[in-house]
């Protein structure tokens, strides 16, 4: 009796429970009631959902000042982020910034994001409590981020100022390298001195966060708290997994309640995010590089092919011969396929894309499973060499261009700094 | 620390050398009170355990056992060398360092250069090599000889070529004593002329010394001392000419005092390389700073003060006097007046309690009165060695690359020409194997070329300093 009742209640409560699990898992997740109201497009649900979407779409920005943004600005960020991800519904994107309408559309957008990929896992991973030490994941930006509030300089800019700034940047690079080297020395010392302290056999020693936790009880408490709350979110995520089917079924009904959009509205590209100049420009520059590479390849392989044909022409065509040729062709095919695979996958072997915990391996001790630094160093060295070469190529190109211009002028002697 | 080997050739060379070793021993004894063999002593002396058999007795560290001079003594007569070996310095040398003959060169450069040169080449070389091997880092050969005689000028300059071939890295500093006009050797103009060509070509630096100048200096000192002008203030043995009497027989002779001046010159020259100071000067810095063109390597030297006063805390005026004297005609070791000629370069080697500000002050004070070549208007090389000469509180050695050396050469050429026109005594030379008339003419043109170089420089003296256009940067 009791069991049956619970089953009935369970069926009725399945949706709220699923939504509750989702809420617990999401940062600043709203109550299930908000979802329900959103289905009916109630305005009071909108602000919460705008905020939620903001956090979901730019989880890292949550730490910055973005949370302090005015509602209009929040909406703007959300819209542009959704747009750049290719969200198809334009209704949402057309809401005036800061309006409280469209909670249903917001719900749809959130669901779209959830359905599309492992959003929850990503969010969890991004905010995961880091207990171990890692290699810094810093990427020097290759484009100036959000346009900085740049004030027009009072006077016109002398090119020497550009040189000055460039020089400054070079010094900063070098300071970064020095600091990082120091960090490595200190890390390595901490690892060495705490050898054998870690309960986990494979790790062996403590990380900075763990050591700091021991040194300072207060930070230890914080860390523990953080871990515990992450565990709660993880549990929620798992529960969501178990229950989400009901949510999708419900979302179907939500979708049914809204009217289909008219094509007239959709096709105009204003809110389809403009494919950034950056992206297209980058594409174009890659294209040029590839074309150059193709040309080079053609130049080296054509004469080789000719020479090969000439040489092979006289050789017999026995079955052994053709078998070996076939074997070679297959081997090369496989190798190239592997090569292609290496860039299609987001992570290549030997190149840590996700955080790897740094572990100092003990001399002579059996090596625990993991990526070997030497392997990563090899990959990185190759990459570094390649980048250096690319840079030098660009510099040479400039040099030729300048030499061409300078050569045309009589009466001047250009004294270049000596070659390295 | 580097070492130097003194090669003393001929009567004059050996007499000067003898004075030098005597003074060097006294100097090091005064500085090195503890009797420990150190780097400074090692520059001129080996420390030898006399009990050890053979050559293996060199001791590089520890107490001084028995000091041996890093020297090679060469004379084609036995007289002077034998005297040394019987004198108080006998322990400083051993027979392995000596090369003597009994016949003498007969005041003939050709005999010394060609005959004995060939005859003793291997033997000399062997001794030189031996002395070089005993050095940690051999930096310089000091060759001392006269220009007028046969052995010194002939064999001495022959040696230069040998050293150049055998030890190309080692500097060759020649102390050459030029004959005075009343020289008693009739052939001295020939000898000097022939020797000059060798010095031109194979020496790194030549310190020309003129007997007449030395004599004048001695006379003047005697005059001052005897007239009692300095009164009781003169400290005994503080004269630069004082001597413990290494060669007793010549004690009263003026030569002795004269040789002492030359010996002091060498000690001062090397002082900054041997002892500590706030501004060191190694021997290789001398030619680097003072020889702007390879052949212009004749350095006119002057030593001051020639005496010192009992009062050790010299007031600045006294100190400044020392600097002034160094540029006066009377203190030069050759008959020359640098103040009225053109300086190519000048070095001031200061010893004793003198600071950089004293040096600066005096350079500023003296400079306006001196003429420098256009491309080296401020050409001073300075050094401060903290160890003064024995008995002095301070001293100064000035080395000048100055066109004032030219008259000495011109007079030499004149005396040579007078003799050569008459072909006097020429046959003594031409009968030696390898000697031809062209040897003489080549020597003359070598000297003339040198004189011409000085003349060319002299000619720029009165001209305004040319403003050489510099590289022009477009932006």
């Amino acid at each position, binding site marked *: 009796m009791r069991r049956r009742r619970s089953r009935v209640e369970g069926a009725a409560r399945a949706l709220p429970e699923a939504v509750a699990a989702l809420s617990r898992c999401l940062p600043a997740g709203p109550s299930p009631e908000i979802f329900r109201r959103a289905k009916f497009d109630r305005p009071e649900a909108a602000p919460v959902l705008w905020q939620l979407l903001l956090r979901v779409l730019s989880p890292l920005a949550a730490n910055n000042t973005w949370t302090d943004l005015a509602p209009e600005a929040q909406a703007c960020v959300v819209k542009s982020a959704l747009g750049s991800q290719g969200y198809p519904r334009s209704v949402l994107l057309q809401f005036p910034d800061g309006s409280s309408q469209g909670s249903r559309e917001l719900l749809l957008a959130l669901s779209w994001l959830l359905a599309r990929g492992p959003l929850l896992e990503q969010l969890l991973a991004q905010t995961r409590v880091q207990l171990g030490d890692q290699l810094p994941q810093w990427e020097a930006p290759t484009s100036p981020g959000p346009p900085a509030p740049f004030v027009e300089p009072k006077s016109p800019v002398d090119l*020497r100022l550009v040189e*000055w700034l460039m*020089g400054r940047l070079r010094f900063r690079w070098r300071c970064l390298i*020095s600091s990082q080297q120091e960090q490595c020395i200190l890390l390595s010392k901490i690892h060495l001195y705490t050898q054998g302290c870690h309960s986990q056999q494979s790790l062996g020693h403590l990380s900075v966060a763990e050591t700091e936790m021991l040194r300072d009880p207060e930070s230890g408490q914080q860390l523990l708290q953080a871990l515990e709350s992450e565990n709660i979110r993880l549990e929620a995520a798992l529960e969501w997994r178990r229950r989400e089917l009901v949510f999708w079924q419900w979302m179907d009904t939500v979708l049914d309640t809204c009217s289909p959009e008219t094509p007239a509205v959709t096709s105009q590209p204003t809110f389809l995010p403009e494919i950034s100049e950056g992206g297209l420009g980058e594409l174009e520059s890659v294209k040029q590089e590839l074309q150059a590479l193709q040309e080079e390849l053609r130049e080296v392989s054509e004469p080789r092919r000719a020479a090969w044909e000439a040489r092979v022409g006289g050789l017999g065509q026995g079955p052994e011969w053709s078998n070996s040729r076939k074997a070679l062709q297959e081997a090369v095919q496989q190798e190239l396929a592997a090569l292609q695979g290496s860039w299609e996958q987001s992570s290549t072997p030997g190149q840590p894309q996700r955080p790897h915990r740094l572990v100092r391996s003990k001399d002579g001790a059996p090596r625990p499973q993991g990526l070997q630094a030497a392997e990563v160093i090899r990959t990185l060295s190759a990459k570094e060499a390649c980048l250096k070469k690319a840079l030098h190529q660009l510099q040479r190109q400039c040099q030729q261009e300048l030499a061409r211009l300078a050569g045309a002028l009589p009466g001047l002697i250009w004294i270049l700094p000596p070659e390295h | 620390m580097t070492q130097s080997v003194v090669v003393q050739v001929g009567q004059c060379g050996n007499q000067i050398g003898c004075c030098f070793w005597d003074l060097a021993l006294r100097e090091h004894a005064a500085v090195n009170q503890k009797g420990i063999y150190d780097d400074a002593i090692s520059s001129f002396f080996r420390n030898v355990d006399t009990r050890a058999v053979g050559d293996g007795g060199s001791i590089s560290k520890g107490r001084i056992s028995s000091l041996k001079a890093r020297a090679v003594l060469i004379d084609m007569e036995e007289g002077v060398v034998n005297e040394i070996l019987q004198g108080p310095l006998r322990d400083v040398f051993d027979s392995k360092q000596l090369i003597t003959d009994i016949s003498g060169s007969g005041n003939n450069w050709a005999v010394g250069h060609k005959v004995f040169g060939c005859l003793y080449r291997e033997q000399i070389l062997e001794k030189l090599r031996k002395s070089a091997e005993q050095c940690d880092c051999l930096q310089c050969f000091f060759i001392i000889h006269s220009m007028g005689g046969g052995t010194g000028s002939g064999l001495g300059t022959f040696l230069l070529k040998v050293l150049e071939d055998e030890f190309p890295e080692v500097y060759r500093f020649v102390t050459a004593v030029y004959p005075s006009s009343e020289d008693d050797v009739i052939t001295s103009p020939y000898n000097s002329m022939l020797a000059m060509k060798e010095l031109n070509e194979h020496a790194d630096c030549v310190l020309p010394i003129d007997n007449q100048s030395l004599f004048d200096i001695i006379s003047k000192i005697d005059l001052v001392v005897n007239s009692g002008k300095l009164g009781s203030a003169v400290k005994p043995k503080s004269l630069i000419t004082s001597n413990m009497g290494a060669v007793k027989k010549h004690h009263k002779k003026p030569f002795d005092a004269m040789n002492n001046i030359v010996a002091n010159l060498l000690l001062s020259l090397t002082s900054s390389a041997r002892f*500590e100071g706030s501004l060191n000067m190694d021997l290789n810095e001398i030619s680097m700073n003072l020889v702007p063109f390879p052949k212009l390597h004749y350095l006119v030297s002057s030593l001051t003060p020639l005496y010192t006063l009992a009062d050790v805390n010299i007031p600045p005026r006294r100190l400044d006097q020392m600097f002034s004297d160094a540029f006066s005609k009377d203190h030069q070791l050759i008959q020359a007046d640098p103040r009225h000629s053109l300086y190519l370069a000048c070095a001031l080697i200061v010893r004793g309690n003198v*600071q950089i500000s004293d040096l600066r002050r005096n350079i500023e004070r003296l400079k306006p009165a001196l003429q420098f070549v256009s491309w*080296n208007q401020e050409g001073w090389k300075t050094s401060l060695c903290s160890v003064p000469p024995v008995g002095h509180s301070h001293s100064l050695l000035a080395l000048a690359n100055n066109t004032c050396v030219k008259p000495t050469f011109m007079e030499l050429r004149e005396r040579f020409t007078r003799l050569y026109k008459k072909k006097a005594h020429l046959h003594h030379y031409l009968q030696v194997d390898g000697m031809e008339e062209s040897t003489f003419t080549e020597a003359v043109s070598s000297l003339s070329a040198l004189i011409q170089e000085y003349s060319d420089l002299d000619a720029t003296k009165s001209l305004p300093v040319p403003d050489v256009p510099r590289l022009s940067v477009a932006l």
Partner: protein
Amino acid sequence: MSIVTVQLGQCGNQIGFEVFDALFRDSHCSQGLCSKRDNEAYQASCRERFFREEENGVPVARAVLVDMEPKVINQTLSKAAQSGRWNYGQHTSFCQKQGSGNNWAYGYSVHGPKHEESIMNLIQTEVEKCDSLSGFFIIMSMAGGTGSGLGAFVTQKLQDQYSSSLKMNQIIWPYGTGEVIVQNYNSILTLSHLYRSSDALLIHENDAVHKICAKRMNIKQISFRDLNQVLAHQLGSVFQPTYSEDSSFHYRRNPLGDLMEHLVPHPEFKMLGVRNIPQMSAASLAYSAFTWAGLLKHLRQMLISSAKMEEGINWQVRPPLTGLPPIGKASAHKEHHFNTSLANLVVLRGREVHSADVEGFKDPALYTSWLEPVDAFSVWKTQRAFDKYEKSAALVSNSQLLVKPLDMIVGKAWNMFSSKAFIHQYTKFGMEEEDFLDSFALLEQVVASYGSLGP
């Protein structure tokens, strides 16, 4: 972060000793006029930077001593040992028997390659003793052969081997007259090479320091030691700890990096001059009192009038008025030689440092037209007094201060070069006239570039 000092040649070694001694004495001086805790932090920061701890408890200078002849090194080592306060490391010196003979080419082309391995090994050993290496001080003179030639060589090698570490050459600019006859050759060769391999050239002019000794320190008979002590004081006043930018609770970690980033980012402008104030003998100091306003007013005028010390400052020099056409004014400026700055750093130490007003240094008229004062001026402070001075200020300036001396040296060397005098001494060791020409060209460019900073 630590700095490894490389002392080269007689001059470099003598100065190096005085610098370490000055740093150590100052940081252990009880007259710091600050709290015990602050003093300890100051000491710790100085230590990390310039000294390392040795087993027996005596701090060891992070230094490598290099000379081509043994006398000076022996003397320096024993002086440090006798001080009882600090010492040089056990195996940190390298010397040979025979010096470079004032010949740049000998130092650069003979001694350099021959002893590269030994010297670089010593340096590496010292570097490995730093948890964190900021960079190198290379102390050398320009006049001689070892400091200049070998110094240029070693700097080049440091650049190759430690490209990300910073290199600051402390250069002793010879007296205008009379140290070494070929000093102008050696100097242009040194400067042009360092311009390629070093990050900054901190220049000390012997003539200027000499005058300071005579006029400000009232020393009658000035010795090299006196000069070196003034120099060490200047260096100390810049590189002793100062508070970091964002807080006065931490001392600046990487002063070398901060300084360079502010003063020498442009490759054509690497010459730095130091001025400091007050400078006086201990005897006069007892009867003197200073105000920040007074000190800074003097320091500023020293800067704009190119004065080398606080005596004989030309108070007529004024910054050019902006907005006024230069005509008419130009002649007046020429007369007084207004010194245009590229960038300046002022270091203030002592009592009430927070009240010091540095607005005078933020006048745009002081700087070249293409840099704003906000980029071109920075200030470091600490309330900890330095070396007996209750209040003191130092100025590190990248300005036209050094153009004149540089122009002189280039001119004199060019003059000598046109007559080919002494060239044979250099070609002997594999240098060519082309090498001289390259050096001349580079330095003429530097002179021109600095010249074009002015209004």
